C-alpha cells in the first residue's frame, strides 16, 4: 500500500481553501490547508508535502515572496511549489521566474488544475 501524495494549500481565503480541498481530495490526494503565511514554514517542514499550492495575495507576506523564502530552505529542495492565484497570468509567469516557483496554477481553471496535479503527482485511482 502506497501513501497518497500530500498537497498543502496555503491561502488566507477560506473559500479557496474549501474548494481546493474538495477538488484535490477528489483526485485521491491528501490535502492539508493553512490559512496564513505565518507559521507556514513550520507547517511545511513538519508536513513535508509533495506539493505546495501557494496563494499570492495574502496579508503581511505575499505568496510569491514566501516562495522565495521557502526556496532558501535546503530541506525543501524536493518540494514542488506552485503559485495558486486569481492574478493575471502574465504577472504569475513573471513571479514564477522571479521567485523561483516551479510553476503556477490559475484558480478558476479547474480542468487545468486537475491535469497539472495528476501529471505532477501521478494519476491515482
Amino acid at each position, binding site marked *: 500500500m502506497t501513501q497518497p501524495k500530500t498537497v498543502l494549500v496555503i491561502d488566507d481565503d477560506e473559500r479557496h481553501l474549501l*474548494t481546493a480541498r474538495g477538488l484535490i481530495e*477528489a483526485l485521491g490526494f491528501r490535502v492539508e490547508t493553512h490559512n496564513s503565511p505565518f507559521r507556514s514554514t513550520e507547517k511545511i517542514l513538519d508536513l513535508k508535502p509533495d506539493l505546495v499550492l501557494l496563494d*499570492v*495575495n495574502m496579508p503581511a507576506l505575499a505568496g510569491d515572496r514566501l516562495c522565495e523564502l521557502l526556496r532558501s530552505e535546503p530541506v525543501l529542495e524536493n518540494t514542488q511549489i506552485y503559485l495558486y492565484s486569481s492574478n493575471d497570468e502574465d504577472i504569475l509567469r513573471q513571479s514564477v521566474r522571479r521567485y523561483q516557483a516551479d510553476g503556477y496554477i490559475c484558480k*478558476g481553471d479547474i480542468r487545468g488544475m486537475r491535469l497539472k496535479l495528476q501529471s505532477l503527482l501521478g494519476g491515482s485511482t
Partner: protein
Amino acid sequence: MLKLITECHNLDNLPVRDLIDSSGSVSPETPISVLAERFFTEPELDALPLVRDGFPYGLAVRNKILTTLGTRFGFALYARKPISAIADMNPLLVHHDESLNGVLAQAMARDFRDIYDEILVVDEADKYVGLLSVKRLVIEQGNHLAQSIAQRRMALERAAEMQKMNDAKSSFMAHITHELRSPLHAIVGVIELVKMNFSQQKLDEFPKYINLLSTSSANLLAIINNILDLSKIEVGRMDVYSEDFVLGDLLQEVLETCQVLLGDKPLTIELDCAQPQILLSGDRGKVRQILLNLASNAVKYTDRGNITIAAEGGSQLKLSVKDTGIGIRTEDLANLFVAFNQLEDAKTRRYNGSGLGLTITAQLVQLLGGNISVDSTFGIGSRFDVQLPCRQPSQPEENFP
C-alpha cells in the same frame, strides 16, 4: 510674429524671414549729407540698406557713417558724395528661408568690426525684403534656448507624471483583475463541488455551499457595480433622478444585503431610525449606494461587535454608519477618498475590495450636493456621516392612522 517663433520648436528650422526688423531703404545715390541728417534726427535708426530697383547694393551703418564723417575733414570730403562712396558695398546678404542659427553663424564669422552690422535679407528673386539686427538675433536665440530648456523640463515632468499615472493604472488593473476573479473563482469552485457531491447524493455540505455562493456573488456584484459606477462618473454620465421612497424600506434593503455579506462573523447590525415610515423625495438609487458602500465597509472592516446604521429624514437626510472595527490611522484619513489609492499594499491586503467604494461614495455625495465626513480611531472603530439635501413630498400618508 512672436507666436510664430514660439511655435517653432527647432532653431534650425526658424526662418529669419520671421525676425526682420525693418524694411526701409535708400537709393545708393542718396547724398551722404541727407543720410547723415537722418541718422542725426532718428536716433533709433541703426542702419539703412542701399537699394535700387528692389535689389540690394550696400549697407549704411549708423556708427560707421557718423564716425567717418566725424573724423577730420570727413564732412567736407564726403558730404556731397553719394552714400555708396562710404557705405559697406559688400554687406552680408542672406536668403529669407535661411535659419536663425545659420545666419547667426555667418554673422559671427565676419571681421570683428562688422560682427554687429545689420544683415540684408533677400527673397527667391534676390530682391531686398528687410534688415536683420544681429543683436535681436542673439536675443532670440537666447530666448529660444531658455524656452527649449523650459519646454524640455516641462516635457520631462509631463512624461514622469504620465509614467506615474500609468503605474498607478497598471497596478490598479492587476489589483482589480484579482478582485474580480477571486470571488468568481470561488463561485466556480463551489459549483464544481456542488456538482460532484450532488452526483453522489452527498447533500450535507449544501447549506454551506449555498451560503458561500451567495456571499461570493454579492461580493462580486458589489465590485462590478463599483467599477461601472466609477466609469460612469468619470465620463460624466451620472444623472440624478428624483423619486419618492420610504426611508425604512431603503434601510431594510441595505440591512439585508449586509446580512448576506456578514457570513458567520459574530457581528450584530442594527438600524436606528425614529421615523422609518417617513416619505422622502430624492435619488433613491444613489442614496442606497452611498449607504451600502459605507455599511459594507463597516461589515468588512469589523470582525466583532456591532454596526449601527442610522438615518434621519427632514429638510436634510442625515445618514451615519458606525462600527467597532479596525479603525483608520489618522495619517490615512486624508487619502481615504482618493481613487486607486489604497491604504494597504494590494498584494498583502487583509481585506478584499476594489478600493473604489469610498471614492465613489464621496463622488455620489458631491453629485447630490451633500457632504461626507469620517471620524475614526485606530483599533476602536469608525463612524461615517453623510448629509444630503432632501425634500419631503406633500404627504398623503399623514392622514392615515
